[in-house]
């Protein structure tokens, strides 16, 4: 089985980092995987996005066009990608920043006020990880133990103090 994921939002929201966390979890779980960032002009002050593929098979094209799962953290990204989600797929939307609701009935949309939750829980700047927590709950991609291991690999030793707050952010999204 292959899971194709797009994460998208503004530069600075930690879109690429959230994708890396998924990638490191895949690495820890001995899966095949790829992580591909947008590196064009959109990165410089506009929207950023990344494609993550996690599979039991070797990955073909690392560029995701029709994701199984989408994390959207701003309106331009929501507008650009909500229509591309595969029928039966799942979308995770930061409803603090995106006040739209999709009309699509062939996908499951989860509206999580992630930015608000991050402020309320002293997790400033971790809306990305809160949404990731919700994604992990609704997709069952990885269990908690694996996520911890993935975070430990993903976060450099110098910043190891951030592991616990990231775990807390995952749990906040997971339990929302």
């Amino acid at each position, binding site marked *: 089985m292959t899971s194709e994921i797009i994460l998208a939002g503004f530069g600075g929201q930690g879109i690429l980092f959230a994708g890396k966390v998924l990638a490191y979890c895949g690495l820890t779980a001995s899966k095949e*995987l*790829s992580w591909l960032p947008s*590196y064009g002009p959109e990165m410089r002050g506009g929207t950023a996005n990344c494609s993550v593929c996690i599979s039991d098979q070797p990955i073909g094209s690392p560029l995701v066009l029709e994701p199984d799962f989408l994390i959207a953290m701003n309106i331009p990204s929501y507008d650009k990608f909500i229509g591309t989600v595969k029928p039966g797929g799942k979308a995770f939307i930061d409803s603090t920043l995106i006040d739209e609701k999709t009309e699509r009935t062939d996908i499951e949309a989860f509206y999580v006020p992630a930015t608000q939750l991050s402020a309320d829980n002293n997790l400033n700047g971790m809306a990305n990880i809160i949404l990731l927590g919700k994604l992990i709950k609704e997709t069952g991609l990885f269990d908690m133990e694996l996520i911890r291991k993935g975070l430990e690999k993903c976060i450099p030793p110098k910043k190891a103090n951030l592991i616990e707050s990231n775990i807390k952010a995952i749990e906040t999204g997971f339990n929302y």
Partner: protein
Amino acid sequence: MERNLMKGNEALAEAAIRAGCKCFFGYPITPQTELAAYMAKRMAKAGGVFLQAESEIAAINMVLGASSTGVRAMTSSSSPGVSLKAEGVSYMAGSDLPGVIINVQRGGPGLGGIQPSQADYWQATRAMGHGDFHILVFAPSSVQEMVDMVIKAFDLADEFRMPAMILADGLLGQMMEPVSFPEITAKTIEKPWATNGHKNARKHNIVNSLYLQAPDLQRTVQERFERYEKIKQTHTEAESYLTEDAEIIVTAYGATARVAKSAVNAAREAGLKVGMVRPKTLWPFPVRELNEGCKNAKAVLCVEMSMGQMIDDVKLALNCSLPVHFFGRTGGVIPTPNDVLAEIQKIGGAL
């Protein structure tokens, strides 16, 4: 073996250090800058030299200088910067100097764009500078292959005393994949020609590409081409995938081959007899491997991120024995598996 998660650009750099590269000279350009950044961080600790040159031209000439002293040296750039290196590569070839050049291709011509492309195939395989010469050209298709091919490029460049290029693209350079680094027993290849210090223990060496007597230059070039013939016989590489019963063979290299493979798998699921031959060396081109893979084929589809460059080598290799179709995207647009599948179905319908 431990799996690491690395960007293609970083993996190229780490592999070069492990292959014994002692000098890296570069100049920043998207989408390969992470390579130089990695070198800047690691090279001094690894006992080598990282230097950001004042230009791409300076960087390749520093590679020429370092290489002439016998050390392993490398430079990297992306398409517009590689064009600037052309003069230096030609001088290296004319001086029989090894060295590794990385091209993480982006769209062209001119400044073009910064998205992935394969439009420098002709440049790499036909005219990486003026004069009669070839360089070795490797085409990785994954981050792991980027590692393996950098190591091989250094070894073969030393063995055959010629420049070697890794022809990658922005997609491979930017993506992260699991990668393992093999235990490297760095080949020590004697370089009695090197212009290093010897305290008058031998006659001094000269590294030079100037021959003012035409017969001398002709002889030198002809000898070099005899070496090229040997390499053509022994150092071609390609991956064959589901070719045994294939009526349609898709050929593609690098990142495009990943897209093509997804399309081949989808075509197989739809009951079409399709296979793939993926050149891993572009010079020398895997003529034998392609013909072997096409032995039951009725048509060939060449897929590239260009207007059609490798297709020339595919046609030359097949020598008019099969119809060769083309599908390409250019300017930084990446073909999709569905695009390629549609082309395969079109060809299949006409068989």
